[in-house]
């Protein structure tokens, strides 16, 4: 999952060494073409993350747009030096955007309605069992606090290791591990309450 690190070289200017950063991240700060290349590289990942958090493609597209537009506006302030940090930064922006979105008043109910409309349209894509599982999961996930939704999604749906999850949510790996354990315990209770029978 980890992207390649940046490449930087030293240039001698007047007897002193000045770092000449040629990494894609450094280029993206001053070159829109380089930023667009990074966008193409990470669009899919961020979009999928938004879908996994929101269970709704249309909303995920909106949030993905917000994420990259915000990244484009703030890339000059981004202090990271390699693509791994850039990717984590994008995930952090996406996490905040999704959480803000979920906190909106009555948003949850609205999402439910849209989800049911969407699943009706997609009924040919999934079998009944998969559809039922997705509905259960969605109900259970949305009943959790956003921070628990985040760690579950990053770890299980984005296939991130705990150390990567920790970098995205800005905590230690130990904290991420314990948060994930709590999240799973809560999710299990919610699934059971919603009628999930393994």
């Amino acid at each position, binding site marked *: 999952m980890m992207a390649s690190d940046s490449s930087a070289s030293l240039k001698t200017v007047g007897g002193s060494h000045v770092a000449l*950063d040629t990494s894609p991240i*450094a280029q993206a700060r001053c070159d*829109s073409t380089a930023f667009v290349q990074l966008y193409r590289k990470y669009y899919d990942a961020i979009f999928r993350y938004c879908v*996994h958090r929101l269970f709704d*493609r249309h909303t995920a597209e909106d949030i993905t747009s917000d994420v990259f537009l915000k990244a484009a506006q703030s890339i000059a302030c981004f202090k990271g030096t390699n693509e791994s940090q850039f990717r984590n930064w994008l995930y952090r922006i996406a996490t905040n955007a999704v959480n803000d979105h979920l906190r909106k008043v009555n948003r949850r109910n609205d999402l439910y309605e849209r989800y049911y409309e969407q699943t009706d349209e997609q009924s040919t*894509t999934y079998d009944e069992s998969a559809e039922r599982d*997705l509905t259960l*999961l969605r109900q259970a996930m949305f009943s959790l606090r956003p921070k628990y939704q985040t760690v579950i999604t990053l770890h*299980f749906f984005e296939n991130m290791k705990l150390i990567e999850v920790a970098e995205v949510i800005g905590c230690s790996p130990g904290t991420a591990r314990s948060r994930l354990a709590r999240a799973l315990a809560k999710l*299990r209770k919610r699934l059971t309450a919603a009628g999930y029978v393994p």
Partner: protein
Amino acid sequence: MSRNEKQVEDFLRRTKFDDSPNYKHRDELEQRLVATLADSPRRENSRWNLRRIVIETKTHKRLVAAVVLIAVFVGMGQISTGRVMFAKVTETAKTGLARLKEFLEKESLRIQESPKPLPPRPAGTTTMPGEDIQGVPTVMIVVQVFTANIKSNKKLAGFLDTQAIQFVQAQSDPNLVYPTPSFWAKLSAEKTEAFLQYTKSHSDLRRIVSPRLLVRSGQEAFIATGTWASRSFEGQAIAIVPTIHGEDGRIDLNFSFIYAEVIQQGFEIRNVQMGADETLLVRTAVQSPKSRSLIARIFGKREETLFVLLEVKIVPPKDPNNGSPVPNATK
């Protein structure tokens, strides 16, 4: 892992989403991004890197700050004689630190573009030890500012006790909103050496800046030092008037100090007679006035003990004919 937890994990892993990207949306968003990027200000790559070097490496940060401040501010000391006025020092700190910050920003570009790694000294305004100053008795001032770890003050206090260093309270600056309780002591050559040895062998007392300059007897010298952290600029401004007292080698010293960050704090020491081998050690605490104040909330609570070691030495004037020191010019 319990069986239930394993089942939940399996359930999560086998869940399938329709998460295939919509490439029409991707292309539309790309067009919007290109337009956004064209409108937003871009940062030059190499400038950013140099700035990062200065800001994020403590050594470079302090080196640049110390070099630039000496270049800019040493020459400002050629003002009239007299008592160091707090109002003037405060004003100097305010304007000087702003200028220092501005200068550093400009220097980042200049260093990058110029083959010279360091800024030139302003012509005719800066003097260095050993340079001739028209045969006038001159005093060399060495200022060393140390920051002490507040948690390790017991060890430091123990050292000061063993050296029997007796501090006297300095006057607070009436023009400042938050006068700082400050204390000073004269150190003999032996105690000065012991103090410097302590700073070298203990990590709880860290030297942050050590400028030195020459000033004519009775004239006022300003030193402004600054560090430019990632999001804040802080600095100290020091004003010194050393006056050579007769021919016995003693120096009358007036000394003002202001710590200028968000809240300006400072103190003043007047008419201290310094022996030939003596130094002046000042201890002061700089901190936010109240941890719950708005300023403290915004900028974070600071609680830092500063030590300022001031060394003044008479430099004999050079003979204009052969460049050697004039005998018995000053003792």
